[in-house]
């Protein structure tokens, strides 16, 4: 028989509280790095996907379909364990001497999320009238430059709401990094649980932190949207 006696001091003070705080730090670093990279990569893939050169379009299309239709967890395992067989030994040695667990998690999250971001950006681009591109081209801009200076800034602005939810998903998905030994928040909550058998306290703490982070991300991006990307701010 077990009557559950709550002991919040476990997650609020001392060594175990420190673990949770360390976990929060790693989750934030992991999410920030992956958000930045996946946005960049999403943009590139979206532009490739709309390219006039068929092979480029095909490669981007294949990439999108494959990544979007495969579980993220499998991708984590593939990049962390599978990459070893593919990469040359020298590269492996170089990676292993560093924090490869973290890097593999960033790679997996970036590649996975960029596929979703690319599709969101693409539908943003498609909603920009064709005449804009024609006008840009006829005033002497190259295709790349028209994209970069005329089309993309408008498309990105239109894409902000779906992007927010992708970034949120990414932050939540970063919890999967625990499976390859990255000591992020979920990993630490689980560590506290297995050291102290205080599962309820540890998971409540972690859950609340995720909720707060979700709120903060939504808030920050909305603020950014208002201040930086608003029509007047774009000049």
């Amino acid at each position, binding site marked *: 028989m*077990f*009557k559950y006696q709550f002991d919040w001091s476990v997650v609020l003070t001392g060594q175990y509280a420190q673990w949770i705080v360390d976990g929060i730090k790693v989750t934030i670093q992991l999410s920030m790095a992956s958000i930045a990279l996946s946005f960049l990569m999403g943009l590139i893939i979206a532009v490739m996907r709309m390219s006039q050169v068929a092979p480029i379009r095909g490669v981007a299309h294949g990439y999108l379909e494959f990544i979007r239709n495969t579980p993220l967890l499998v991708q984590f395992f593939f990049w962390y364990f599978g990459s070893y067989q593919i990469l040359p030994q020298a590269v492996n040695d170089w990676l*292993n001497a560093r924090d490869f667990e973290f890097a593999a998690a960033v790679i997996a999250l970036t590649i996975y999320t960029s596929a979703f971001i690319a599709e969101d950006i693409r539908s943003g681009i498609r909603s920009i009238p064709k005449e804009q591109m024609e006008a840009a081209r006829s005033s002497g801009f190259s295709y790349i430059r028209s994209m970069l200076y005329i089309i993309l800034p408008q498309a990105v602005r239109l894409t902000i709401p779906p992007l927010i939810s992708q970034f949120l998903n990414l932050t939540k998905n970063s919890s999967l990094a625990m499976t390859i030994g990255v000591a992020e928040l979920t990993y630490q909550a*689980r560590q506290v649980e297995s050291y102290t058998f205080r599962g309820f306290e540890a998971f409540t703490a972690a859950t609340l932190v995720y909720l*707060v982070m979700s709120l903060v991300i939504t808030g920050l991006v909305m603020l950014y949207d208002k201040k930086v990307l608003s029509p007047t701010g774009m000049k």
Partner: protein
Amino acid sequence: MKKILAVLLTVAFVAGLAGIALAEDTYDIVKKRGTLIVGTKDASPGFGYIDPKTREIIGYDCDFAAYLAKKMGVKLELKGVTSAARIPQLQAGNVDLIAATLTWTAERAKQVDFSYTYFLTGQKFLVKKGTVNSLADLEGKKLGTAKGTTSEQNASKALPKATILSFDDYPQAFLALQQGKVVAVTTDESILAGILGKAPNKDQYEIADIRISDEPYGIAMRKDSPKMLKFVNDTLLEMEKNGEAKKIWDKWFNPKSDQPMPRGKFKITADRK
């Protein structure tokens, strides 16, 4: 936010109280059900692992579980558990017993009841041949082990500056060692020997002779089951007496096996060690 917190707290509290429902002695539950459900490892060579041909779980732990079920006159069902899931699975009532390389510790003994020790080993390090001679060689390096284990806790005590990477089970940690992601896998010698025995390129690895702890394994059950505890303990003593315990040891760890380990002076006694 407050609302969510309140809901979560209420739910957690109610859940805590609801735990009382599992008050019946496990022995009676098993008898009534006609099946003994034992949690064993499913990726620990020698103790509990899946036979690639029959896809059944086999090993030292499984043979003990089978003997217990036979003695009780019930069917046996084996359930694969990971290290971190063992005790939660037991407390949740998903398994009746755990025979899954579970080391006795004072902290764990507060959560579950342990039988007499049925296997004794110690924690060591599996490394690339010739790379590690003393504990000092490992300080500050990356070590691999499994989540929710005593190995993890012992290692961080013995090597406070080392980075401990915890995976879901040991073979994954060994894979990390093979790929150079960690310099050693640390856990009970018995488990290391099992992994090494099954490794395709075993000649490149060795178990360094650095022992950082004693690891007595016990069969664990829920705290509310004195009848089950007495049954398991009596059966273990009987197995020692009629030679069955030694037979099982020799079956899995004889000198010609993949993971030879002499039984030495070890005997199951009415004692913890």
